[in-house]
Each structure stands twice: as C-alpha cells, then as structure tokens.
C-alpha cells in the first residue's frame, strides 16, 4: 500500500501513532541522556542544571577521569569483569554439556533429571538457606560465591535442550558410523551447529552476571571484592558519598570532593551501563531473533 493512496484521516492517524511511539522513545532515553549531559558538563556549572536538558553545560571529562582513576571504581571494574567472564565461561560450558545429554531421547533417567531441573525453577527455598550453604562450603567472602550463583541457569538450559533436540538425527548418526565417540560428536558436530544458540546463551549470561548485585552484596563483606554494581549501589542508592569521595578527600576538600556529587553519581551510573551498551547491537541481533522464534520468556 503506497502512502499516497491514503486518505487525509489515515495520514493523521499514522502521524499520531508514530508520535506516540517517538514520545515513548524520548521517555525511555531522555533520563539517560540527561545523566550523560550532567557527567560531561563542567562540574562547577552543574548545580542548577535542569533535569530536562540533554546538552552539557560546557564540556569537561573531569568527572570521568576522576572516576576512572578512583581505586574503588577500578577495583569494581576489575571484579565485575572477572566475575562476569569466569561465571559466563563456566555457565556456557556446563549448560551446553548438560543440555546435550538431556536432549537425547533415549537417555536413561532423562525425565527424572528434567524434573530435577524444573523443581529448581518453581521452588526456591530463599536466600537464608542459600547463604548457609555458601557458608558451609566456605565460599563466603570469596569470588566463587558470586561466580557460582546461578552459574547454570535452568531457563537457559531448557532453551539449549530445545535447540539440541532439533539437530537432525542423520548428522549425528553419520559421525557415529565414522567411529566418533559421544565426546567427539559433541565437539565436532554439535557445538559448531549450535553456534548461534551458544552465542545467545552467552549474551544472556553476560548480561545476567554483569547486572547481578544482590548476591554479591550479601556474600561479600570484603569491599575489595565488590563488583561495580555494589559500589554503585553504595554510592548512589545508599547515598554513602565517602564510597567514592573518600574520607581524606572529604576532610581536606581535595580530589573527588571538589566535584559536585550529582556529576559523580551521573558518571558512575553511566560507567556501569557502558559494557551493556557495547554489546547492545549483539543483544538486539540475537535476543530479538531468539524471542521471535518462539521462546516465550528470556
């Protein structure tokens, strides 16, 4: 249907529809762009800056420089990257291996194992028992307590099982006839076929672990192991300005203490989003496709 054949009324309707959606875009993006503008403004000119603007007052990278040179922030970045990568690696490997077994129709005990996984989705005994298990295993205050939290995610496992079930039997049988053992079949046939699915799962895990804060918060007393999300929470949500400013700077009015707190908070929030923005094109590509092809909830 060419637009030219539309009646004036239809054109007005269409304009209303598009404007409504664009308004939605503005409501979604403006609060983030405002923080960007605040963080890039000259710190001295930030007080009194409107929450509606998306243009910085002047231009200065001072906030970002101070944040990136701050030891707490640097530790946070390091910890977040470490936890996210190790956790994702373990998760993808563990999930793929387990999904492959569970996707084989003839596997003895398959149904029982499947139920064993489902139970963990519908029944969660809560944070206190989880906390005590970690305590008993001696994992409290170690990176492992956070790395292993939902290391194999039951939902992602089910997604991969469904994917592996679709692999044509003929391919697998051909390689078995060539004398490949199950490990070789998995490595040389299944994994290469599953690349898109594995990429999707990896992204799921990356986003999940990068954004995790609650379990890191309760398992890690040692602040030097805190991921960025927990540092951000202490600074912005709990309003503990010493988390970033530091007691010496606060007393002597030096360093970060000279910068408006609003700018520091804005910069800190954005810093935590940067990795998500970096992989966002991939997320759009893989998640959208995954969701569109039938997986109900991700």
């Amino acid at each position, binding site marked *: 249907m060419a637009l030219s054949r539309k009646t004036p009324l239809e054109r007005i309707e269409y304009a209303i529809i598009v404007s409504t959606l664009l308004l939605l*875009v503005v409501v*979604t993006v403006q609060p983030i762009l405002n923080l960007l503008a605040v963080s890039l403004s000259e710190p001295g000119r930030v007080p009194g800056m409107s929450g*509606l603007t998306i243009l910085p007052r002047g231009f200065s990278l001072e906030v970002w420089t101070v944040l990136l040179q701050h030891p707490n922030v640097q530790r946070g970045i390091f910890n977040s990257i470490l936890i996210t990568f190790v956790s994702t690696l373990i998760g993808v490997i563990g999930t793929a*291996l387990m999904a492959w077994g569970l996707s084989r129709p003839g596997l003895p005990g398959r149904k029982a194992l499947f139920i064993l996984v489902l139970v963990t989705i519908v029944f*969660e005994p809560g944070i206190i*028992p989880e906390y005590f298990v970690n305590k008993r295993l001696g994992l409290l205050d170690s990176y492992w307590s956070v790395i292993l939290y939902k290391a194999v995610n039951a939902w992602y496992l089910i997604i991969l099982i469904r994917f592996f079930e679709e692999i044509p039997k003929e391919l697998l049988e051909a390689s078995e006839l060539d004398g490949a053992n199950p490990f070789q079949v998995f490595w040389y046939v299944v994994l290469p076929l599953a690349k898109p699915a594995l990429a999707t799962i990896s992204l799921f895990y990356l986003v999940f672990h990068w*954004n995790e804060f609650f379990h890191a918060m309760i398992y890690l007393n040692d602040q030097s192991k805190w991921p960025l999300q927990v540092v951000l929470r202490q600074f912005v949500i709990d309003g503990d300005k010493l988390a970033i400013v530091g007691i010496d700077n606060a007393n002597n009015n030096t360093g970060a203490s000279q910068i408006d707190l609003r700018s520091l908070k804005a910069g800190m*929030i954005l810093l935590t989003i940067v990795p998500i923005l970096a992989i966002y094109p991939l997320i759009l590509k893989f998640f*959208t496709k995954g969701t569109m092809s039938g997986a109900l909830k991700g």
Partner: protein
Amino acid sequence: MTDHDQTLNAPRIGNVPKSAVRGKPKRATAFANGWRRWWPFYVMMAPGLAFFLVLHYLPIWEARIAFEQVRIVPPNIWVGLKHFYVLFASPVFWQVLANTLIISAMKMAFFLPVPILVALLINEVRGGRLRKFIQSAIYLPHFLSWVVIAGVFIAALSPTDGAVNNLMGMAGIAPRSFMTDTGAIRWVLVFTEIWRSAGWDSLLYLAAIIAIDQQLYDAAEIDGANRWQKIWHVTLPGIVPTIATLFILNAGMFLNADLNQVINFSNDVVRSKIDIVDTYVYRIGLQTGEYSLATAAGLFKAVLGTMMIVTAHFVSKRLTGKGVW
C-alpha cells in the same frame, strides 16, 4: 516418540548374542547395556548435575532450620512449627504479605496492558528503519540492572533538578519528592517496571502478531475494514492466546514482587509501604540474624509460590497450549 525413533535410540550394544546374556535378570542387562552406551553423556552432564545438587538442592535441605532453634553450639533443636506460629502472629508479616499482593496487583493491572498497546502501535509502523530505531531505543532499559535504574530515577524524580519536577514546575505544580512520598512510592515501582520492561515485553506480542495469517488482513481489507477495525477484529483475536498465557504466568508469580527492584527503591521513609516478603526475609534474616524466622517466612512464600506457579502452568497449558516450561 515413534517406533522408528525407539529403534534408532536403542542401545547399540543391544545386539549381543542371546546366549551371552542368558540366565541374567533382564532388567539388570538392560541397565548394563544402557550404561555402556550412555555413560559418556552422564560424564558430560556431571558438572551441571553437581551444580544443581549442591547449589539448589542443598539449600532445600538447609531450609530445615525453619523448624529448628539455631544454637551457637550445635546441634540445633527441633522445634516443629514454632517459628511459623510466631510468624503468623506477627503483624509485620501480614503487612509485608499485603504489600507484596498489592504491588503485584498494581503491576498486573497497569503494566500488563502497556506492552500489548506498544506492540499494536509498532505493528502499524511501515518504515523499516523507523521501526528498528523505535525498537532499539525502547528495548534498552530491560538490560539495565535495578541499581542503575534506581539511580536514573532518583535523579529524574529529584524534587530540585529532576526532569519530572522540572516539567511539573513549568505547569505550575508544586514539586514533590516522589522517592520519599509514601503515597507515591508504589506508583514509582509500577512506573519504573513499565519503563524497564514494557518495550521488551512488547516483542512477545509482536512475535504473535507477525504469526497472524496475512490473508485475514487481506480479507478484512476487501470487506472495507479500516485500521482500527483490522486491529480489533484480526490482530487482537490473533494475540489473545499470548495475552492469556502471559496473564496466567504473571498470576503464578504473584508473590514475587521483585526483590531486586524494591530493595533499590526502598528507604527509611517509605519502607512500610513497599516492604515485601523477600525484603523482609533479607532484613530479619541477614541483617537482624533471626535465621529461623526468616527461613520460615521464605519457606511459606516458596511453598505458596510453587503451588501458584504449578497451577498457573497447567491452567495455561490447558487453555492456550503454552506453559511455563
């Protein structure tokens, strides 16, 4: 599964001469044959299985402290349902349970319709580029953590220099401190939930809309249907199953008012309005150290929640063919 499948998946080693297995119990042989073919798969599944047993099943066993008196010098003493009686006699518990239900109900009433509307609107957009731009923008918040989102909204709702109060100021409305306003904070939860996930959830409905047979639209057009009539008579009926599924599944999750969200929007002023079962468990358990009472509250929620979600699954499966898993 067809017979054909079963033949293909029968143990390869199954065709050993009958004489070799004569005399042995049939079941044991089948097991041995199965094991010989399937052990590599069990080896591959071992890490995952170990993970689930240790980090998901051990906590279930550990939850027995809900029925015990924790002592500094072990062993703990079995006290049966004592902690549950204390819990049910506590007004705070009923308050947090009520908060949980109220917040869930508000989200269900005001969140669920939004992604449907968004999907219907996006479906009307013709230009591929414009559509992609809109989608890319509104899906983003779904991938941000609640710490970040709370940070964004603490700024946006600030009474002095937040966008919302700046707008209200232009309209001559007096500024309001939403984050410390007991009357507003639940609505802040509902709105931020919409901000975060209405865009992304619209994708689920959009997938359903795209699956609708194009011929139905063509037929409607021939009958002279306009845009709204097509939406009302073709699109909406086409996505009713998806709406029903998501509605039922949400009902199943009713006791999860989202710990990660609430804990970041909570503060001393508004806590009584948005303290939910999960934050209550966290507070009395890990902050006050009443482990048994907290575990009892957690278990109560877990058991009730399991019943609800399993019911939701089977109802949904029965009505729409799609379940939770």
